[in-house]
Protein backbone atom coordinates (compact mmCIF):
# COMPACT_ATOMS: atom_id res chain seq x y z
CA UNK A 1 0.00 0.00 0.00
CA UNK A 2 1.37 3.36 -1.02
CA UNK A 3 0.84 6.52 0.96
CA UNK A 4 -1.15 7.88 -1.95
CA UNK A 5 -3.74 5.24 -1.13
CA UNK A 6 -3.44 5.76 2.60
CA UNK A 7 -4.21 9.43 2.04
CA UNK A 8 -7.49 8.47 0.43
CA UNK A 9 -8.61 5.71 2.78
CA UNK A 10 -11.16 6.37 5.46
CA UNK A 11 -12.83 4.08 7.95
CA UNK A 12 -16.42 3.56 6.85
CA UNK A 13 -17.59 1.73 9.95
CA UNK A 14 -21.14 2.57 10.99
CA UNK A 15 -21.28 5.49 13.37
CA UNK A 16 -17.82 6.81 12.63
CA UNK A 17 -17.94 10.53 11.86
CA UNK A 18 -14.37 11.01 10.78
CA UNK A 19 -12.50 7.88 9.80
CA UNK A 20 -9.49 9.70 8.37
CA UNK A 21 -6.60 9.39 8.62
CA UNK A 22 -6.15 5.75 9.55
CA UNK A 23 -3.36 5.01 11.97
CA UNK A 24 -0.53 2.85 10.66
CA UNK A 25 1.21 0.02 12.47
CA UNK A 26 4.17 -1.18 10.46
CA UNK A 27 5.44 -4.72 10.46
CA UNK A 28 7.23 -4.55 7.16
CA UNK A 29 7.79 -1.73 4.75
CA UNK A 30 9.61 -1.53 1.42
CA UNK A 31 10.87 1.12 -0.91
CA UNK A 32 10.22 0.59 -4.61
CA UNK A 33 11.32 3.07 -7.21
CA UNK A 34 8.87 4.22 -9.80
CA UNK A 35 8.99 6.81 -12.56
CA UNK A 36 7.92 10.33 -11.71
CA UNK A 37 4.95 11.96 -13.41
CA UNK A 38 4.94 15.67 -12.64
CA UNK A 39 1.40 16.16 -13.98
CA UNK A 40 0.23 13.61 -11.49
CA UNK A 41 2.22 15.10 -8.63
CA UNK A 42 0.83 18.56 -9.29
CA UNK A 43 -2.66 17.11 -9.44
CA UNK A 44 -2.16 15.20 -6.20
CA UNK A 45 -0.60 18.18 -4.45
CA UNK A 46 -3.98 19.89 -4.55
CA UNK A 47 -5.80 16.85 -3.19
CA UNK A 48 -3.47 15.49 -0.58
CA UNK A 49 -4.05 16.07 3.10
CA UNK A 50 -0.50 17.13 3.79
CA UNK A 51 -0.29 16.58 7.52
CA UNK A 52 -1.56 13.04 7.19
CA UNK A 53 1.03 12.38 4.49
CA UNK A 54 3.88 13.73 6.60
CA UNK A 55 2.82 11.63 9.60
CA UNK A 56 2.35 8.50 7.57
CA UNK A 57 5.75 8.96 5.91
CA UNK A 58 7.37 9.31 9.33
CA UNK A 59 5.68 6.11 10.46
CA UNK A 60 7.29 4.38 7.50
CA UNK A 61 10.62 5.89 8.37
CA UNK A 62 10.79 8.81 5.96
CA UNK A 63 11.27 12.20 7.56
CA UNK A 64 12.34 14.39 4.66
CA UNK A 65 8.99 16.01 3.94
CA UNK A 66 8.50 19.61 5.05
CA UNK A 67 5.81 20.08 7.69
CA UNK A 68 4.21 22.93 5.79
CA UNK A 69 3.87 23.44 2.09
CA UNK A 70 2.81 26.01 -0.41
CA UNK A 71 2.33 25.81 -4.17
CA UNK A 72 5.58 27.57 -4.99
CA UNK A 73 7.38 24.51 -3.72
CA UNK A 74 6.19 22.67 -6.81
CA UNK A 75 8.90 24.53 -8.71
CA UNK A 76 11.58 22.89 -6.67
CA UNK A 77 12.96 19.66 -8.11
CA UNK A 78 14.09 18.59 -4.69
CA UNK A 79 10.66 19.04 -3.22
CA UNK A 80 9.07 17.19 -6.12
CA UNK A 81 11.48 14.30 -5.68
CA UNK A 82 10.67 14.00 -1.99
CA UNK A 83 6.95 14.35 -2.56
CA UNK A 84 7.12 11.66 -5.24
CA UNK A 85 9.13 9.40 -2.97
CA UNK A 86 6.75 9.68 -0.05
CA UNK A 87 3.60 9.41 -2.11
CA UNK A 88 4.51 6.56 -4.45
CA UNK A 89 7.73 4.83 -3.42
CA UNK A 90 7.11 3.94 0.21
CA UNK A 91 5.09 0.76 0.66
CA UNK A 92 3.47 -0.72 3.70
CA UNK A 93 3.82 -4.43 2.94
CA UNK A 94 2.68 -5.96 6.21
CA UNK A 95 0.89 -4.21 8.99
CA UNK A 96 -2.35 -2.74 10.11
CA UNK A 97 -4.45 0.35 9.45
CA UNK A 98 -6.31 1.60 12.48
CA UNK A 99 -9.65 3.37 12.59
CA UNK A 100 -9.06 6.62 14.48
CA UNK A 101 -12.40 6.48 16.27
CA UNK A 102 -13.02 2.82 16.99
CA UNK A 103 -9.50 1.42 17.00
CA UNK A 104 -10.63 -1.30 14.61
CA UNK A 105 -7.70 -2.80 12.76
CA UNK A 106 -7.72 -3.38 9.04
CA UNK A 107 -5.03 -5.82 7.98
CA UNK A 108 -2.48 -5.09 5.27
CA UNK A 109 -0.88 -8.19 3.75
CA UNK A 110 1.49 -8.29 0.79
CA UNK A 111 0.82 -4.61 0.38
CA UNK A 112 -2.92 -5.11 0.10
CA UNK A 113 -5.26 -3.56 2.65
CA UNK A 114 -8.44 -5.45 3.40
CA UNK A 115 -11.08 -2.86 4.17
CA UNK A 116 -14.09 -5.18 4.23
CA UNK A 117 -16.39 -4.63 7.19
CA UNK A 118 -18.14 -7.29 9.24
CA UNK A 119 -21.91 -7.33 9.11
CA UNK A 120 -22.25 -5.65 12.45
CA UNK A 121 -20.05 -2.77 11.38
CA UNK A 122 -22.14 -1.80 8.42
Amino acid at each position, binding site marked *: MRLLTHNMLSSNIKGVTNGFPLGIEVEKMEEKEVEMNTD*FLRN*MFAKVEWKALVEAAKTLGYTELPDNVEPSMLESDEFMRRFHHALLELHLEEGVLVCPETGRKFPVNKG*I*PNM*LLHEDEV
Partner: protein
Amino acid sequence: MIFAVRRGFSIVKVEASSTACYLKSLCTMKGEDIYDSLGSEGFPVLTPIVAGNNKKSSSSKVQVTPEIEKKYVHRVYDAIAPHFSSTRFAKWPKVQGFLNALPSGSLILDAGCGNGKYLGLNPNCYFIGCDISAPLINICSDKGNEVLVADAVNLPYRTGYGDAAISIAVLHHLSSESRRKKAVEELIRIVKKGGLILITVWAREQEDNSLVKKWTPLSQKYVEEWIGPGSPRTRSPSSSVSLESISETEESVSAEQSMYLPKESEDERSTDIKYPSCSDLTRSPAPSIHLESISETEESVSGEQSMYLPKESEDERSTDIKYPSCSDLTRSPSPSIHLESISETEESVSGEQSICLPKEYEDERSVEIKHPNSSDGPFSSDSTIKKSSLCQQEYFVPWHLPYHRAEVSGASSNAVSNGFARKDDKKGAVVYDRYYHVFSEGELERLASNVEGAVVVDRFYDKSNWCIILEKTSS
Protein backbone atom coordinates in the same frame (compact mmCIF):
# COMPACT_ATOMS: atom_id res chain seq x y z
CA MET B 1 -37.08 -32.31 -30.76
CA ILE B 2 -40.20 -32.10 -28.70
CA PHE B 3 -40.07 -31.00 -25.13
CA ALA B 4 -42.63 -32.63 -22.94
CA VAL B 5 -43.25 -31.80 -19.35
CA ARG B 6 -44.34 -34.26 -16.78
CA ARG B 7 -47.83 -34.54 -15.49
CA GLY B 8 -48.97 -31.82 -13.18
CA PHE B 9 -48.22 -29.29 -15.84
CA SER B 10 -49.86 -28.57 -19.07
CA ILE B 11 -48.15 -30.52 -21.71
CA VAL B 12 -45.99 -28.16 -23.54
CA LYS B 13 -44.93 -28.96 -26.99
CA VAL B 14 -42.54 -26.52 -28.40
CA GLU B 15 -39.98 -26.61 -31.07
CA ALA B 16 -36.64 -27.23 -29.50
CA SER B 17 -34.95 -24.49 -31.35
CA SER B 18 -37.15 -21.88 -29.82
CA THR B 19 -37.86 -23.05 -26.35
CA ALA B 20 -34.57 -22.28 -24.84
CA CYS B 21 -34.14 -22.09 -21.19
CA TYR B 22 -37.43 -20.85 -19.98
CA LEU B 23 -38.60 -24.01 -18.45
CA LYS B 24 -35.58 -24.49 -16.34
CA SER B 25 -36.05 -25.72 -12.92
CA LEU B 26 -35.67 -23.67 -9.87
CA CYS B 27 -34.35 -26.57 -7.97
CA THR B 28 -31.15 -24.74 -8.65
CA MET B 29 -32.04 -22.27 -5.99
CA LYS B 30 -31.20 -24.58 -3.23
CA GLY B 31 -29.71 -23.36 -0.10
CA GLU B 32 -29.73 -24.28 3.51
CA ASP B 33 -33.28 -24.59 4.78
CA ILE B 34 -34.57 -23.93 1.38
CA TYR B 35 -36.84 -26.89 1.05
CA ASP B 36 -39.90 -26.77 3.19
CA SER B 37 -41.44 -29.97 2.09
CA LEU B 38 -42.29 -31.94 -0.92
CA GLY B 39 -45.42 -30.86 -2.69
CA SER B 40 -48.14 -33.22 -3.71
CA GLU B 41 -46.43 -34.16 -6.92
CA GLY B 42 -43.28 -35.02 -5.11
CA PHE B 43 -41.63 -31.81 -6.13
CA PRO B 44 -39.88 -29.85 -3.50
CA VAL B 45 -41.48 -26.65 -2.42
CA LEU B 46 -38.85 -24.03 -2.66
CA THR B 47 -38.32 -21.16 -0.38
CA PRO B 48 -36.01 -18.39 -1.29
CA ILE B 49 -32.63 -17.72 0.11
CA VAL B 50 -32.86 -14.53 2.07
CA ALA B 51 -30.26 -12.46 3.73
CA GLY B 52 -30.10 -13.33 7.39
CA ASN B 53 -33.54 -13.96 8.77
CA ASN B 54 -35.18 -11.00 7.19
CA LYS B 55 -37.97 -11.80 4.85
CA LYS B 56 -38.19 -8.33 3.43
CA SER B 57 -35.16 -7.12 1.64
CA SER B 58 -36.23 -3.56 2.25
CA SER B 59 -35.74 -3.87 5.96
CA SER B 60 -32.22 -5.25 5.80
CA LYS B 61 -29.35 -2.86 5.51
CA VAL B 62 -28.45 -2.09 1.96
CA GLN B 63 -24.76 -2.57 2.67
CA VAL B 64 -25.10 -6.03 4.16
CA THR B 65 -24.25 -8.61 1.54
CA PRO B 66 -27.26 -10.79 0.71
CA GLU B 67 -26.84 -14.55 0.71
CA ILE B 68 -27.33 -14.87 -3.01
CA GLU B 69 -24.34 -12.65 -3.63
CA LYS B 70 -22.21 -14.42 -1.06
CA LYS B 71 -22.98 -17.77 -2.64
CA TYR B 72 -23.31 -16.96 -6.29
CA VAL B 73 -20.95 -14.07 -6.76
CA HIS B 74 -18.27 -13.82 -4.07
CA ARG B 75 -17.66 -17.47 -3.48
CA VAL B 76 -17.67 -18.25 -7.16
CA TYR B 77 -15.19 -15.58 -8.14
CA ASP B 78 -12.93 -16.59 -5.29
CA ALA B 79 -12.97 -20.16 -6.56
CA ILE B 80 -12.44 -19.34 -10.22
CA ALA B 81 -10.14 -16.33 -9.87
CA PRO B 82 -7.04 -17.52 -11.71
CA HIS B 83 -9.01 -19.14 -14.51
CA PHE B 84 -11.32 -16.15 -14.76
CA SER B 85 -8.35 -13.82 -14.89
CA SER B 86 -6.72 -15.81 -17.67
CA THR B 87 -9.76 -15.26 -19.83
CA ARG B 88 -9.93 -11.55 -19.13
CA PHE B 89 -7.37 -9.87 -21.26
CA ALA B 90 -9.14 -8.23 -24.18
CA LYS B 91 -9.51 -4.52 -23.54
CA TRP B 92 -12.90 -3.21 -24.40
CA PRO B 93 -12.40 -0.29 -26.78
CA LYS B 94 -15.10 1.83 -25.20
CA VAL B 95 -13.50 1.58 -21.81
CA GLN B 96 -10.07 2.11 -23.23
CA GLY B 97 -11.33 5.19 -25.07
CA PHE B 98 -12.83 6.62 -21.91
CA LEU B 99 -9.64 6.11 -19.94
CA ASN B 100 -7.34 7.45 -22.63
CA ALA B 101 -9.39 10.61 -22.94
CA LEU B 102 -8.83 11.53 -19.30
CA PRO B 103 -6.31 14.28 -18.57
CA SER B 104 -2.74 13.31 -17.92
CA GLY B 105 -2.04 12.94 -14.25
CA SER B 106 -5.58 11.88 -13.33
CA LEU B 107 -6.27 9.61 -10.39
CA ILE B 108 -8.67 6.93 -11.62
CA LEU B 109 -10.60 4.66 -9.27
CA ASP B 110 -11.77 1.26 -10.53
CA ALA B 111 -14.46 -0.10 -8.22
CA GLY B 112 -14.87 -3.81 -8.87
CA CYS B 113 -11.63 -4.08 -10.83
CA GLY B 114 -11.68 -7.89 -11.09
CA ASN B 115 -8.34 -9.07 -12.40
CA GLY B 116 -7.20 -5.50 -12.95
CA LYS B 117 -7.51 -5.54 -16.69
CA TYR B 118 -7.93 -1.79 -16.89
CA LEU B 119 -5.52 -0.72 -14.19
CA GLY B 120 -2.70 1.22 -15.75
CA LEU B 121 -4.30 1.24 -19.16
CA ASN B 122 -3.61 4.95 -19.53
CA PRO B 123 0.09 5.25 -18.72
CA ASN B 124 -0.26 8.94 -17.92
CA CYS B 125 -2.74 8.33 -15.16
CA TYR B 126 -2.63 6.63 -11.81
CA PHE B 127 -5.07 3.86 -10.95
CA ILE B 128 -6.27 2.49 -7.66
CA GLY B 129 -8.43 -0.59 -7.90
CA CYS B 130 -10.59 -2.43 -5.43
CA ASP B 131 -12.63 -5.61 -5.56
CA ILE B 132 -14.47 -7.70 -3.03
CA SER B 133 -12.60 -10.81 -4.11
CA ALA B 134 -9.27 -11.20 -2.36
CA PRO B 135 -8.02 -13.84 -4.83
CA LEU B 136 -8.69 -11.50 -7.74
CA ILE B 137 -7.04 -8.63 -5.92
CA ASN B 138 -3.97 -10.79 -5.33
CA ILE B 139 -3.76 -11.32 -9.05
CA CYS B 140 -3.97 -7.54 -9.62
CA SER B 141 -1.32 -6.92 -7.02
CA ASP B 142 1.05 -9.45 -8.55
CA LYS B 143 1.00 -7.34 -11.67
CA GLY B 144 2.21 -4.35 -9.71
CA ASN B 145 -1.07 -2.50 -9.33
CA GLU B 146 -2.16 -0.47 -6.34
CA VAL B 147 -5.21 -2.31 -5.06
CA LEU B 148 -7.23 -3.16 -1.99
CA VAL B 149 -10.06 -5.44 -0.95
CA ALA B 150 -13.25 -3.45 -0.51
CA ASP B 151 -16.98 -3.48 -1.15
CA ALA B 152 -18.33 -1.37 -4.03
CA VAL B 153 -21.47 -0.70 -2.00
CA ASN B 154 -19.45 0.85 0.80
CA LEU B 155 -16.16 2.24 -0.48
CA PRO B 156 -13.55 3.12 2.13
CA TYR B 157 -12.56 6.25 0.25
CA ARG B 158 -12.72 9.89 1.22
CA THR B 159 -15.28 11.92 -0.63
CA GLY B 160 -14.26 13.71 -3.81
CA TYR B 161 -10.72 12.39 -4.05
CA GLY B 162 -10.70 10.74 -7.45
CA ASP B 163 -10.64 12.43 -10.82
CA ALA B 164 -12.62 9.68 -12.49
CA ALA B 165 -14.11 6.30 -11.69
CA ILE B 166 -15.07 3.20 -13.60
CA SER B 167 -17.43 0.35 -12.81
CA ILE B 168 -17.08 -2.26 -15.54
CA ALA B 169 -19.44 -5.22 -15.36
CA VAL B 170 -20.02 -4.92 -11.64
CA LEU B 171 -23.50 -3.64 -10.86
CA HIS B 172 -25.19 -6.60 -12.47
CA HIS B 173 -23.91 -8.76 -9.61
CA LEU B 174 -25.86 -6.74 -7.06
CA SER B 175 -29.12 -8.41 -6.25
CA SER B 176 -31.32 -5.48 -5.30
CA GLU B 177 -32.11 -2.13 -6.79
CA SER B 178 -31.24 -0.38 -3.57
CA ARG B 179 -27.79 -1.95 -3.57
CA ARG B 180 -27.25 -1.05 -7.19
CA LYS B 181 -28.31 2.49 -6.44
CA LYS B 182 -25.97 2.64 -3.46
CA ALA B 183 -23.09 1.53 -5.64
CA VAL B 184 -23.84 4.36 -8.06
CA GLU B 185 -24.00 6.79 -5.14
CA GLU B 186 -20.59 5.61 -4.01
CA LEU B 187 -19.09 6.07 -7.46
CA ILE B 188 -20.37 9.63 -7.54
CA ARG B 189 -19.24 10.33 -4.01
CA ILE B 190 -15.63 9.30 -4.53
CA VAL B 191 -14.90 11.57 -7.47
CA LYS B 192 -14.33 15.31 -7.48
CA LYS B 193 -16.82 17.82 -8.79
CA GLY B 194 -16.66 17.57 -12.56
CA GLY B 195 -15.29 14.06 -12.32
CA LEU B 196 -16.47 11.48 -14.84
CA ILE B 197 -17.79 8.00 -14.11
CA LEU B 198 -18.18 5.18 -16.62
CA ILE B 199 -20.52 2.35 -15.71
CA THR B 200 -21.16 -0.73 -17.85
CA VAL B 201 -23.53 -3.61 -17.14
CA TRP B 202 -24.80 -6.64 -18.99
CA ALA B 203 -27.86 -5.89 -21.03
CA ARG B 204 -31.04 -7.88 -21.01
CA GLU B 205 -31.18 -7.15 -24.70
CA GLN B 206 -28.43 -9.29 -26.08
CA GLU B 207 -26.80 -9.25 -29.45
CA ASP B 208 -26.48 -13.00 -29.51
CA ASN B 209 -29.67 -14.62 -28.36
CA SER B 210 -28.65 -18.21 -28.82
CA LEU B 211 -26.55 -18.00 -25.72
CA VAL B 212 -29.46 -17.52 -23.36
CA LYS B 213 -30.01 -21.20 -23.37
CA LYS B 214 -27.13 -21.72 -21.05
CA TRP B 215 -28.57 -19.54 -18.37
CA THR B 216 -30.84 -20.44 -15.55
CA PRO B 217 -33.50 -17.84 -14.90
CA LEU B 218 -34.54 -17.20 -11.34
CA SER B 219 -38.18 -17.52 -10.44
CA GLN B 220 -40.56 -14.73 -9.74
CA LYS B 221 -40.91 -15.85 -6.17
CA TYR B 222 -37.25 -15.31 -5.56
CA VAL B 223 -37.34 -12.02 -7.33
CA GLU B 224 -40.01 -10.76 -4.99
CA GLU B 225 -38.15 -11.87 -1.95
CA TRP B 226 -34.79 -10.57 -2.96
CA ILE B 227 -35.67 -7.46 -4.78
CA GLY B 228 -38.64 -6.26 -2.84
CA PRO B 229 -40.88 -3.32 -3.67
CA GLY B 230 -39.62 -0.56 -5.79
CA SER B 231 -37.77 -2.71 -8.20
CA PRO B 232 -38.56 -1.92 -11.81
CA ARG B 233 -39.51 -5.55 -12.19
CA THR B 234 -41.98 -5.77 -9.39
CA ARG B 235 -43.54 -2.47 -10.36
CA SER B 236 -44.52 -3.77 -13.71
CA PRO B 237 -45.25 -7.41 -13.31
CA SER B 238 -47.02 -7.63 -16.59
CA SER B 239 -43.95 -6.74 -18.49
CA SER B 240 -41.54 -8.69 -16.39
CA VAL B 241 -41.16 -12.26 -16.56
CA SER B 242 -41.69 -15.03 -14.91
CA LEU B 243 -40.24 -17.77 -16.04
CA GLU B 244 -41.07 -20.38 -14.18
CA SER B 245 -39.63 -23.10 -13.01
CA ILE B 246 -40.92 -26.40 -13.37
CA SER B 247 -39.38 -28.50 -10.71
CA GLU B 248 -36.99 -30.73 -12.36
CA THR B 249 -37.66 -34.35 -12.96
CA GLU B 250 -35.62 -36.94 -14.70
CA GLU B 251 -37.94 -36.76 -17.63
CA SER B 252 -38.05 -33.07 -18.10
CA VAL B 253 -34.38 -32.72 -17.54
CA SER B 254 -33.37 -35.16 -20.13
CA ALA B 255 -35.83 -33.68 -22.55
CA GLU B 256 -34.52 -30.20 -21.96
CA GLN B 257 -31.02 -31.44 -22.18
CA SER B 258 -31.62 -32.59 -25.65
CA MET B 259 -32.35 -29.09 -26.73
CA TYR B 260 -29.15 -27.68 -25.51
CA LEU B 261 -26.64 -30.10 -26.74
CA PRO B 262 -25.14 -29.41 -30.08
CA LYS B 263 -26.03 -32.05 -32.57
CA GLU B 264 -22.83 -33.96 -32.32
CA SER B 265 -23.06 -34.53 -28.65
CA GLU B 266 -26.61 -35.76 -28.60
CA ASP B 267 -25.37 -39.24 -29.20
CA GLU B 268 -23.14 -38.90 -26.23
CA ARG B 269 -26.02 -38.55 -23.92
CA SER B 270 -26.82 -41.65 -22.08
CA THR B 271 -29.68 -42.60 -19.90
CA ASP B 272 -27.50 -42.47 -16.87
CA ILE B 273 -26.86 -38.79 -16.94
CA LYS B 274 -26.65 -37.76 -13.37
CA TYR B 275 -28.98 -34.97 -12.62
CA PRO B 276 -29.66 -34.61 -8.99
CA SER B 277 -33.29 -35.44 -8.72
CA CYS B 278 -35.49 -33.40 -6.50
CA SER B 279 -35.34 -35.98 -3.80
CA ASP B 280 -31.59 -35.88 -3.90
CA LEU B 281 -31.75 -32.18 -3.36
CA THR B 282 -33.65 -32.51 -0.16
CA ARG B 283 -30.86 -34.58 1.25
CA SER B 284 -28.20 -32.20 0.24
CA PRO B 285 -27.90 -29.08 2.28
CA ALA B 286 -26.45 -26.86 -0.33
CA PRO B 287 -27.59 -25.64 -3.69
CA SER B 288 -27.14 -27.77 -6.70
CA ILE B 289 -27.86 -26.67 -10.12
CA HIS B 290 -29.33 -28.83 -12.78
CA LEU B 291 -29.43 -28.43 -16.38
CA GLU B 292 -26.09 -29.08 -17.78
CA SER B 293 -25.02 -26.28 -19.93
CA ILE B 294 -23.82 -26.45 -23.41
CA SER B 295 -20.48 -27.67 -24.47
CA GLU B 296 -18.74 -24.35 -24.78
CA THR B 297 -16.52 -23.56 -21.90
CA GLU B 298 -15.26 -20.29 -20.63
CA GLU B 299 -11.81 -21.41 -21.53
CA SER B 300 -12.43 -21.02 -25.16
CA VAL B 301 -13.25 -17.46 -24.57
CA SER B 302 -10.85 -14.98 -25.87
CA GLY B 303 -12.78 -13.37 -28.63
CA GLU B 304 -14.07 -16.56 -30.09
CA GLN B 305 -17.64 -15.92 -29.44
CA SER B 306 -18.47 -16.77 -33.00
CA MET B 307 -17.80 -20.38 -32.36
CA TYR B 308 -20.82 -20.54 -30.14
CA LEU B 309 -23.29 -19.76 -32.80
CA PRO B 310 -24.49 -22.74 -34.73
CA LYS B 311 -24.56 -21.93 -38.38
CA GLU B 312 -28.31 -21.89 -38.58
CA SER B 313 -28.70 -19.16 -36.06
CA GLU B 314 -26.28 -16.98 -37.87
CA ASP B 315 -28.60 -17.01 -40.81
CA GLU B 316 -31.51 -16.11 -38.62
CA ARG B 317 -29.89 -12.99 -37.47
CA SER B 318 -30.84 -9.90 -39.27
CA THR B 319 -30.12 -6.31 -38.76
CA ASP B 320 -33.59 -5.55 -37.62
CA ILE B 321 -34.10 -7.98 -34.83
CA LYS B 322 -36.93 -6.86 -32.64
CA TYR B 323 -36.60 -7.32 -28.95
CA PRO B 324 -40.04 -8.04 -27.64
CA SER B 325 -41.51 -6.25 -24.68
CA CYS B 326 -38.32 -4.32 -24.24
CA SER B 327 -38.88 -0.69 -24.87
CA ASP B 328 -38.46 0.48 -28.36
CA LEU B 329 -34.78 0.62 -28.94
CA THR B 330 -35.12 3.07 -31.75
CA ARG B 331 -36.15 5.66 -29.21
CA SER B 332 -32.89 5.30 -27.50
CA PRO B 333 -30.23 7.77 -28.44
CA SER B 334 -27.73 5.01 -28.44
CA PRO B 335 -26.50 3.41 -31.61
CA SER B 336 -28.75 0.88 -33.23
CA ILE B 337 -28.03 -2.67 -32.56
CA HIS B 338 -26.85 -4.83 -35.31
CA LEU B 339 -25.11 -8.08 -35.36
CA GLU B 340 -22.42 -7.47 -37.84
CA SER B 341 -19.81 -9.34 -36.04
CA ILE B 342 -19.62 -11.50 -33.08
CA SER B 343 -16.89 -9.72 -31.36
CA GLU B 344 -16.10 -10.40 -27.81
CA THR B 345 -18.08 -8.47 -25.30
CA GLU B 346 -16.76 -7.48 -21.96
CA GLU B 347 -18.32 -10.39 -20.24
CA SER B 348 -19.77 -12.56 -22.91
CA VAL B 349 -16.51 -14.12 -23.75
CA SER B 350 -17.81 -17.43 -22.73
CA GLY B 351 -20.94 -16.98 -24.70
CA GLU B 352 -22.93 -16.22 -21.64
CA GLN B 353 -25.50 -13.88 -22.90
CA SER B 354 -28.88 -13.34 -24.22
CA ILE B 355 -32.05 -13.00 -22.44
CA CYS B 356 -34.81 -11.47 -24.46
CA LEU B 357 -35.38 -13.60 -27.42
CA PRO B 358 -36.23 -12.13 -30.74
CA LYS B 359 -39.84 -11.91 -31.78
CA GLU B 360 -39.84 -15.07 -33.79
CA TYR B 361 -39.10 -17.08 -30.70
CA GLU B 362 -41.68 -15.36 -28.64
CA ASP B 363 -44.52 -16.15 -30.96
CA GLU B 364 -43.72 -19.80 -30.86
CA ARG B 365 -43.64 -19.85 -27.23
CA SER B 366 -46.88 -18.73 -25.71
CA VAL B 367 -47.38 -21.57 -23.41
CA GLU B 368 -49.14 -21.94 -20.20
CA ILE B 369 -47.54 -23.61 -17.34
CA LYS B 370 -49.14 -24.80 -14.21
CA HIS B 371 -47.00 -25.23 -11.21
CA PRO B 372 -47.76 -27.63 -8.46
CA ASN B 373 -45.47 -26.12 -5.94
CA SER B 374 -45.84 -23.24 -3.57
CA SER B 375 -48.96 -21.90 -2.11
CA ASP B 376 -48.83 -18.24 -2.90
CA GLY B 377 -48.11 -15.80 -5.60
CA PRO B 378 -48.16 -16.71 -9.21
CA PHE B 379 -47.07 -20.21 -8.60
CA SER B 380 -50.00 -21.62 -6.75
CA SER B 381 -51.30 -24.80 -8.18
CA ASP B 382 -54.37 -23.17 -9.56
CA SER B 383 -52.69 -20.37 -11.33
CA THR B 384 -51.23 -20.34 -14.73
CA ILE B 385 -48.43 -18.27 -16.02
CA LYS B 386 -48.52 -16.98 -19.48
CA LYS B 387 -45.13 -16.99 -20.87
CA SER B 388 -45.75 -14.40 -23.47
CA SER B 389 -43.31 -11.93 -22.04
CA LEU B 390 -39.94 -13.46 -21.79
CA CYS B 391 -37.91 -10.65 -20.39
CA GLN B 392 -36.39 -12.21 -17.39
CA GLN B 393 -33.68 -10.22 -15.68
CA GLU B 394 -32.42 -12.47 -12.91
CA TYR B 395 -30.14 -15.27 -13.96
CA PHE B 396 -27.58 -17.80 -12.98
CA VAL B 397 -24.84 -17.93 -15.58
CA PRO B 398 -22.54 -20.93 -15.51
CA TRP B 399 -18.79 -20.82 -15.33
CA HIS B 400 -16.91 -23.94 -16.31
CA LEU B 401 -13.76 -24.38 -14.31
CA PRO B 402 -11.67 -27.10 -15.95
CA TYR B 403 -10.72 -29.93 -13.64
CA HIS B 404 -7.02 -29.24 -13.91
CA ARG B 405 -7.66 -25.71 -12.78
CA ALA B 406 -10.03 -26.75 -10.05
CA GLU B 407 -7.48 -29.07 -8.48
CA VAL B 408 -5.11 -26.19 -7.92
CA SER B 409 -7.26 -24.42 -5.41
CA GLY B 410 -8.79 -27.49 -3.86
CA ALA B 411 -11.85 -25.46 -3.08
CA SER B 412 -13.75 -27.06 -5.88
CA SER B 413 -13.85 -30.56 -4.46
CA ASN B 414 -15.49 -29.18 -1.36
CA ALA B 415 -17.80 -27.13 -3.48
CA VAL B 416 -18.94 -30.17 -5.38
CA SER B 417 -19.43 -32.35 -2.33
CA ASN B 418 -21.43 -29.59 -0.69
CA GLY B 419 -23.58 -29.26 -3.75
CA PHE B 420 -22.40 -25.74 -4.29
CA ALA B 421 -20.98 -26.60 -7.67
CA ARG B 422 -21.46 -29.54 -9.97
CA LYS B 423 -19.19 -31.66 -12.07
CA ASP B 424 -19.45 -32.00 -15.76
CA ASP B 425 -17.34 -34.99 -16.65
CA LYS B 426 -18.02 -34.63 -20.33
CA LYS B 427 -16.45 -31.23 -20.31
CA GLY B 428 -14.00 -32.04 -17.61
CA ALA B 429 -15.07 -29.06 -15.61
CA VAL B 430 -16.58 -28.02 -12.33
CA VAL B 431 -19.55 -25.82 -13.04
CA TYR B 432 -20.32 -22.80 -10.89
CA ASP B 433 -23.26 -20.49 -11.28
CA ARG B 434 -22.93 -16.74 -11.05
CA TYR B 435 -25.83 -14.50 -10.15
CA TYR B 436 -26.69 -11.71 -12.58
CA HIS B 437 -29.32 -9.04 -12.66
CA VAL B 438 -29.16 -7.99 -16.27
CA PHE B 439 -30.29 -4.47 -17.06
CA SER B 440 -33.11 -3.57 -19.38
CA GLU B 441 -32.85 -0.65 -21.73
CA GLY B 442 -33.02 2.60 -19.84
CA GLU B 443 -32.74 0.94 -16.45
CA LEU B 444 -29.17 2.01 -15.82
CA GLU B 445 -29.96 5.55 -16.80
CA ARG B 446 -33.04 5.61 -14.58
CA LEU B 447 -31.02 4.24 -11.72
CA ALA B 448 -28.33 6.88 -12.14
CA SER B 449 -30.80 9.70 -12.70
CA ASN B 450 -32.36 8.95 -9.34
CA VAL B 451 -29.07 9.58 -7.61
CA GLU B 452 -28.33 13.15 -6.70
CA GLY B 453 -25.19 15.00 -7.47
CA ALA B 454 -24.46 13.87 -11.01
CA VAL B 455 -25.86 14.10 -14.50
CA VAL B 456 -25.84 11.67 -17.34
CA VAL B 457 -23.57 12.94 -20.08
CA ASP B 458 -23.58 9.92 -22.35
CA ARG B 459 -25.33 6.62 -22.66
CA PHE B 460 -24.83 3.85 -25.18
CA TYR B 461 -25.22 0.19 -25.92
CA ASP B 462 -22.12 -1.65 -26.86
CA LYS B 463 -21.51 -5.34 -27.31
CA SER B 464 -24.50 -6.44 -25.27
CA ASN B 465 -23.80 -4.02 -22.45
CA TRP B 466 -25.65 -0.92 -21.38
CA CYS B 467 -23.20 1.85 -20.65
CA ILE B 468 -23.45 5.26 -19.11
CA ILE B 469 -21.16 8.17 -18.36
CA LEU B 470 -21.96 10.45 -15.45
CA GLU B 471 -20.47 13.75 -14.46
CA LYS B 472 -20.49 14.80 -10.85
CA THR B 473 -22.12 18.17 -10.38
CA SER B 474 -21.98 18.55 -6.64
CA SER B 475 -18.89 19.33 -4.65
